[in-house]
């Protein structure tokens, strides 16, 4: 396989998910910087030929073009993680990973929009987005509270999967849209576990320590 190309914007948490996953499975991509703010380059014809809505990240390898972070995470898990640690085969764990990936792309997408509205002047009702993001984070905190009762440190079980990688950035960055970590003790503990993963990397707004 040739080296994949990742169309990337450093401040975009969805791009960070893919960079984090690549680092965790020890692979690299050729990074192509897309000037989203202020250049709006993601809406250029060249990008929209690959990702029609202009959403990032985009992964390209030979003839394969993928957009949507959760799909790219799944592809990376099959292509570059031979032990299938990040997307296990057993049906129960696989189902749980898919459930939380869907949650990440649906319920938790309010957090991505809240951050874009708060930080990058994207249009949106910040109060409504923040409320929806907080509701999603509460569901996550409740789930991890239960996982911790069972001694499980990650969303789908005892070890990290692409579900954790997909869910992590919006919690880690929640102060960007004015949701503090005070009321999410189980997510604080989980975020510390994510930070300890082999291959963990940072992005602007997500420091290494806490």
């Amino acid at each position, binding site marked *: 396989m040739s080296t994949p190309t990742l169309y990337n914007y450093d401040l975009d948490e969805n791009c960070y998910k893919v960079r984090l996953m690549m680092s965790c499975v020890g692979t690299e991509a050729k990074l192509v910087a897309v000037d989203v703010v202020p250049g709006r380059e993601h809406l250029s014809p060249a990008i929209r030929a690959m990702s029609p809505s202009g959403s990032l990240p985009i992964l390209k390898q030979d003839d394969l073009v993928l957009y949507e972070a959760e799909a790219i995470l799944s592809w990376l898990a099959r292509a570059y993680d031979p032990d299938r640690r990040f997307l296990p085969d057993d049906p129960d764990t696989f189902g749980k990973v898919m459930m939380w990936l869907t949650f990440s792309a649906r319920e938790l997408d309010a957090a991505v929009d809240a951050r874009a509205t708060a930080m990058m002047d994207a249009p949106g009702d910040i109060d409504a987005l923040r409320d929806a993001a907080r509701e999603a984070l509460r569901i996550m905190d409740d789930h991890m509270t239960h996982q911790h009762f069972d001694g499980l440190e990650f969303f789908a079980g005892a070890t990290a999967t692409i579900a954790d990688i997909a869910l992590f950035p919006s919690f880690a960055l929640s102060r960007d849209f004015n949701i503090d*970590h005070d009321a999410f003790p189980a997510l604080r503990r989980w975020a510390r576990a994510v930070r300890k993963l082999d291959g963990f990397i940072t992005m602007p707004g997500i420091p290494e320590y806490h």
Partner: protein
Amino acid sequence: MSLQDWYPLALSRDIAAGTSAGTRVLGEEFVVWRDSKGAVHAWDDRCPHRGMKMSFGFVRGDHIACLYHGWQYDTAGQCQYIPAHPDLEVPQTIKIPRFATIEAGGMIWGCFNGEDSATPPAPDLPSEITPLRSIFADCPAPLMVAQIAKTTFGETTPDVAAKTDRIVDITLGDIKLIAGVQAIADGESALHLVALGELDASKLKPLSLWAEQLRRDAEAVAKASATTEIAA
């Protein structure tokens, strides 16, 4: 500050060694952190340098450092190191106000009556407990407490006995809980819940689900009463 009694701030379990979290009591902001030796600290949540929240910072050993410029403070609240001026002997005046803390009944309690002044007796709580969880809700603390008896646990109606406005005994069938009640701000509160004795995951999960329902119920009541006030 006149919060001259013990106020519950968190479950002991939820502030692990080497970590910090922000909290509020009646709107006043504090950082709660535990050093690597296991001692708990509650301070004003503000770095004297640029006013950054210390709860955004990080704990290393027995120091907590501000996320902004890395100023490091020892357990006495004294700034000991400024990375931008590594050779500087830091003036004694660069200090963060700190408050008394104790741990009782599986919870961290803070008393905010000024440094080194006398503290009231510790809350009399059992030590044989299992931490359940903290539950945070957008409603005044008295409303949250009043709701406890109204949210049934399966078929069981909770039996509630408020020992003080901050310590509430809850009986759910053969299970006994203690709630530490935190009035975070006007319309925000938390219950820090522990169970008496030793409970395993199969017992803790239904209790946690009950606490989630309590949060939903309390917030629905708070929202309905806010709507009624506007209509009136």
